[in-house]
């Protein structure tokens, strides 16, 4: 009874809701990573950098449109598009030429972009913190059982399912999604029936990177936008993709849930080392299911 009442306490409930809004960001970023990993088989460690660039672009765009509601929506729309454009250039310029290399070469190639993007951000935006204002519409908090829960996080809770549904429709209901799923399983066969695989790869890469940018733009109002925000996030995204099953979008959702909830509850239980809890969860999951909870696409 004691435990039950503890779980139902407002503090824990609020923390769970916070964990869920964190889950949304993790899911949006990790699903993009998973998509690229599943179809192109690139462990894109620069995905975190794109997330960071998305956040910085959101800052610039919202400043450009003078903050407020218009600035915010333009930021959420334009920043991911900017990231997508950047990724398009990179994919066509470099990645499309090296798909046949070993995984480790591709991995190191993406690390080259971590270095380059990191310094480019430093050049363009400087090394100091930036903050994106929460639009007036989303400011404030709503009371839940005596605790105050920020409205913006509620908005994030709505965005998560929305992105998941759109992604589901894109992957399962559109022709491009079907082709990309086929390409993930057998690229040569897809090429054999006369489909331009290179173009499919490019679109998947760009969509994946768009999601990284979207994650960055959505998270910008509630964190300090700074250099180095990519470093921790990409490790979390890697773990999520691993426990979910490589290339499986629902796996990414499940992994994000596990990660976000254990993270937020871990901080509640043990403030200093709560960060250990999600990792412990990952180790438990992997000792029972070494290739992730859901079926990986390769």
């Amino acid at each position: 009874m004691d435990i039950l009442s503890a779980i139902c306490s407002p503090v824990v409930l609020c923390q769970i809701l916070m964990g869920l809004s964190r889950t949304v960001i993790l899911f949006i970023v990790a699903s993009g990573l998973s998509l690229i990993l599943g179809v192109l088989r690139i462990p894109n460690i620069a995905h975190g950098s794109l997330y960071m660039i998305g956040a910085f672009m959101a800052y610039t765009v919202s400043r450009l449109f003078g903050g407020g509601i218009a600035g915010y929506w333009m930021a959420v729309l334009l920043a991911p598009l900017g990231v997508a454009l950047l990724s398009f250039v990179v994919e066509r310029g470099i990645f499309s030429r090296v798909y046949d290399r070993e995984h480790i070469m591709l991995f190191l190639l993406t690390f080259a972009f971590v270095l380059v993007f990191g310094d480019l951000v430093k050049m363009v935006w400087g090394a100091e913190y930036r903050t994106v204002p929460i639009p007036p519409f989303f400011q404030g908090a709503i009371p839940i059982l005596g605790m105050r829960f920020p409205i913006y996080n509620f908005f994030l809770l709505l965005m998560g399912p929305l992105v998941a549904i759109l992604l589901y429709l894109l992957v399962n209901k559109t022709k491009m999604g079907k082709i990309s799923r086929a390409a993930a399983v057998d690229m040569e066969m897809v090429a054999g029936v006369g489909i331009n695989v290179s173009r499919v790869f490019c679109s998947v890469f760009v969509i994946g990177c768009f999601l990284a940018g979207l994650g960055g733009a959505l998270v910008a109002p509630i964190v300090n936008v700074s250099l180095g925000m990519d470093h921790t996030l990409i490790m979390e995204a890697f773990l999520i993709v691993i426990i979910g099953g490589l290339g499986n979008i629902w796996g990414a959702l499940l992994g994000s849930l596990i990660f976000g909830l254990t993270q937020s509850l871990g901080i509640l239980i043990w403030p200093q080392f709560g960060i250990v809890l999600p990792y412990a969860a990952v180790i438990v999951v992997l000792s029972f299911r070494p290739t992730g909870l859901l079926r990986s696409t390769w």
Partner: protein
Amino acid sequence: METANYKYVIFALVIAAIFAVAPFSLPRFYVYLIALIVTTGLLSTSLNFVLGFGGIYQFHHAVFYGVGAYGAAVMIMKLNYNPWIGFIVGPLAAAFLSLVIGLICIRLSKLYFGMLQISLGSLVWAIVYRWYTFTGGDDGIHGISVPPILESPIGSYYFTLIVVALSLFIMYRILKAPFGSILQGIRDNVVRSQAIGVNVRRHQLIAIVIAGFFAGVAGVLFVVVDNSVFPDMMFWTLSLEITIMALVGGWYTFLGPMLGAAIIVLLRTFVSTMTEYWALALGLVLLLVILFLPEGVLGKVFEIWRERGLGRTGEAERTKGTDYA
């Protein structure tokens, strides 16, 4: 064959002589730099031991370097043990940690292994980063007391050099021993190795522990050279930097990572004096190497030698093409 060995001995003696007289003819900064290069080179070589020769995607190798250094630093500064004991505990701690992480990751294959390994390594980093009372948090530990004989730059230089040479020799012997051949066999074809009765996971785990141990040795040497430790020593970007060193020097060659470490450390030293955008420069170098010189400098040299019929086709010097999965 006799003459070839004779040549190599002369070559080795000349190199040894150059290193031996270096501290008397170079400014102090360069002595420090050489010590730093051989330390980093040892770290990169130990990575190449698992990555290049074992085919194991050990993406986060620097964590063992950091744990080796922190193990020594904590023993000396926080627990007040004799520095020599700290120097022994450091590598052992690194070897133990590599066993633990290895046991968790070993069931996964290739990329899964690498991604989990890098994530678990960053967990270790996060713990070190937050555990202020024990590890000094983000400040690290500075002014670590070392044995009197190592306090002078020349003393630490020679100590570093001797330990690195000894470590390289041991790793080289291991790779030349039957164990090394089995390891490379596993790298080239896991299924066939299993079919002839090789316990693949056990061999890979042993290789991981050996590499972790020598990474820890490199960490201790960093303590000797720099008298300080800080969390960046086990951040994942450093791991990828030493992977770049191995790549630039040449994977599948034994001395490649050492050469790569020299190239990258020197490049960093001189680029950093000109611009603050060192990472950008490193990224561009990496990009060019991957696109145009994927076999690395030493790999390319051996390739050219072989084309001209000059080189030996020894196992350790053999360069391999792509695709060994």
